[in-house]
């Protein structure tokens, strides 16, 4: 019974990783107006919720294409996976595994709260029932639910600005996010460090006793379409330094033209992209 459950913790941690890859894209989108934004941000303390909300809002309604590799590292093994992902707004996304060969071709389509998966080995499209939403996505540490939700962070938490500091010539905001009482969030609080160009530098997950459980850090940055975004992020449990998961963007494109058939079941089954 526990094998199936696999540590939802780990999944949630990937969810955030995945989510913030997306947030970083939006940061890239923000870059165009960065100077103006930064000025107003400096003038008055920005609202914490707004800081997160804005980047999410800007990300919505835009399209993206990315090639991502994910590495899961444990003390005695390590595994990597490469994926292509297309997104449109907040609701539509399509992810297709490109390597390793064993998993290549496995794909998931998410439209709002519905999710379908396709496995070339059995040549079937399966609607993922809600009872399976908590199960592993493509054998990874993501749960189906994890990758189909993304705006939880805004709506399920109370955000407050806890402080700011200077780092590498950037202003860095520290935001404390405390989940609502009935929210389906296990954390006691989350602490986010967001740079004034909206790049998330670090996200900390604290338990309800005030102990740090795990941290996601941005390790390096990259340029995509002339914007600065996070390239590599690593999630590390605080009590086990030898276990981590890293997400690396190998290629990112924003605001590309996507065919209207991108997010359809037929495209899920017969890739045309």
């Amino acid at each position, binding site marked *: 019974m526990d094998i199936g459950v696999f540590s*939802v*913790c780990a999944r949630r941690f990937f969810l955030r990783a995945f989510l913030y890859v997306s947030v970083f894209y939006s940061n890239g989108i923000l870059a165009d107006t960065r100077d103006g934004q930064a000025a107003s941000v400096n003038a008055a303390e920005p609202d914490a919720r707004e800081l997160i909300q804005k980047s999410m809002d800007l990300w919505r309604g835009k399209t993206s294409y990315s090639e991502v590799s994910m590495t899961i590292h444990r003390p005695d093994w390590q595994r990597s996976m490469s994926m292509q992902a297309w997104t449109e707004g907040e609701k539509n996304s399509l992810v297709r595994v490109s390597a390793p060969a064993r998993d290549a071709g496995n794909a998931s389509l998410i439209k709002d709260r519905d999710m379908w998966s396709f496995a070339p080995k059995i040549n079937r499209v399966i609607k993922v029932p*809600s*009872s399976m939403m*908590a199960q592993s996505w493509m054998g990874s540490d993501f749960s189906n639910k994890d990758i189909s939700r993304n705006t939880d962070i805004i709506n399920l938490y109370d955000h407050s600005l806890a402080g700011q500091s200077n780092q590498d010539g950037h202003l860095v905001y520290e935001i404390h996010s405390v*989940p609502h009482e009935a*929210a389906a969030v*296990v954390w006691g609080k989350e602490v986010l460090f967001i740079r004034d160009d909206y790049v998330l530098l670090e996200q900390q997950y604290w338990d*309800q006793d005030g102990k740090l*459980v795990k941290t996601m850090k941005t390790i390096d940055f990259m340029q995509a379409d002339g914007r600065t975004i996070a390239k590599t992020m690593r999630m590390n449990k605080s009590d086990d330094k030898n276990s981590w998961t890293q997400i690396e963007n190998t290629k990112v494109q924003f605001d590309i033209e996507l065919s209207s058939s991108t997010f359809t079941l037929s495209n899920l089954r017969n890739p045309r992209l």
Partner: protein
Amino acid sequence: MAALESGSPGSQSPQRSARTGTHSTNGTLLGISLQLAWRNLWRNKKRSLIMLAAISLGAWAMIFMPSLMRGMLNDSLQRSFDALPGQVQAHQKNYRLDSSIESSFLVPGAEQQALLSEAPVTHWVARIKLPAVLNSERESRAVQLIGLNYQRETQLDLKLVAGHWPADNSEMGLVIGSKLAERLETGLGKRVVLMSQGADGELAERGFRIVALYRSELGAGDERVIYLGLDAAQRFLKMPGKISELAFWGGADADSVADKHSETALLNYVRSVLDKQLEVLPWYELDPYLASMMGMLDAMIVIWILVVFIAMGFGLANTLLMAIFERVRELGLMIALGMPRAMVLVQLLLESLFMLMIGLAVGNALALLCVFAFRDGIDLSAFADAMAMAGVGSRLYPNLQFTDVALANVTVLVLGLATSLLPAWRASHYDPVQALSKD
């Protein structure tokens, strides 16, 4: 017994009658055979005592072990009853195959409720019982969510080790096992996230505070079962007015598992009142494991007795063979003197029978003594974890059943004699001339 052999006064008369008895009735012959068999039994004391010890131990194992097995099953039954209170329970037909939210049904209407408050029903409750997943910051576990009416669940016997039962059934507070809390690395007053399938087919998930921790002797339940108020559970799962289980009590002794057929009247009454689509079953048929265990145990006991007997039977046959080989000349002489061959056979069988009977008597006494000695239960707390895994508590009460005792004794006697038949038959067919010429 030694006295009997070495010439008690009574030993004279049978010998006299033996002299004259060859021509008299079979009754006298039988008397002689009895006498001879008994004496022969004690000619080689060491060997006989070893064989007696083997038979006694075998008989003891045949009686005492089944009593432990029955005790264990009874314990499981009692626990299963405690865990699933309700002598008779009603579910949607599919529920036992697929305990999902689709197998829920509406609470009985006012008319049915009125009927359910009449005899033979003395009490009834409604519950939600569905699979769910409970998450903490560090761990996640599959659990069974039970939504219940705290006020009406008078039979639920849970010891709270921390916190209090929620004041009313709509409070969004969870009661979980202390072991589960340990596994999840969470505790009283902490928030956990509960996930399950809602009635709308969507994933229902929500944060809940842990308002109480309970401990059950049965480790497995402790780690798996969590409780929530019925109204709160219905709200969480978006299934207002719906439940997955109805449980009924009625008649005299609700706590006893002794007479499992006492609820037939209750069963029939409940069946007549409730919708025909609902599956109404007595509690002991609800747990498929227990139901099959009950059916299997009798067979297991027979197999056990046979296995012990086979080990014992070889020893018995061997002992008798040895006894016969040592007495080839003597047996030949008896036949030569006119002892009917049948009587030789009978005498050897009697020898075996005496051995079996003494062994059985000692074995029965030992087993009864053991059962009596452990009447307060055998403390197995050293293995409590393993026992809990098997659904058994840390105290094992032997349960002696007359049928088991009878079965063991009859098996040993009948099969024991059958085993002795071959050596005895061979001995009774010796050629006296050849036999007498042996050294």
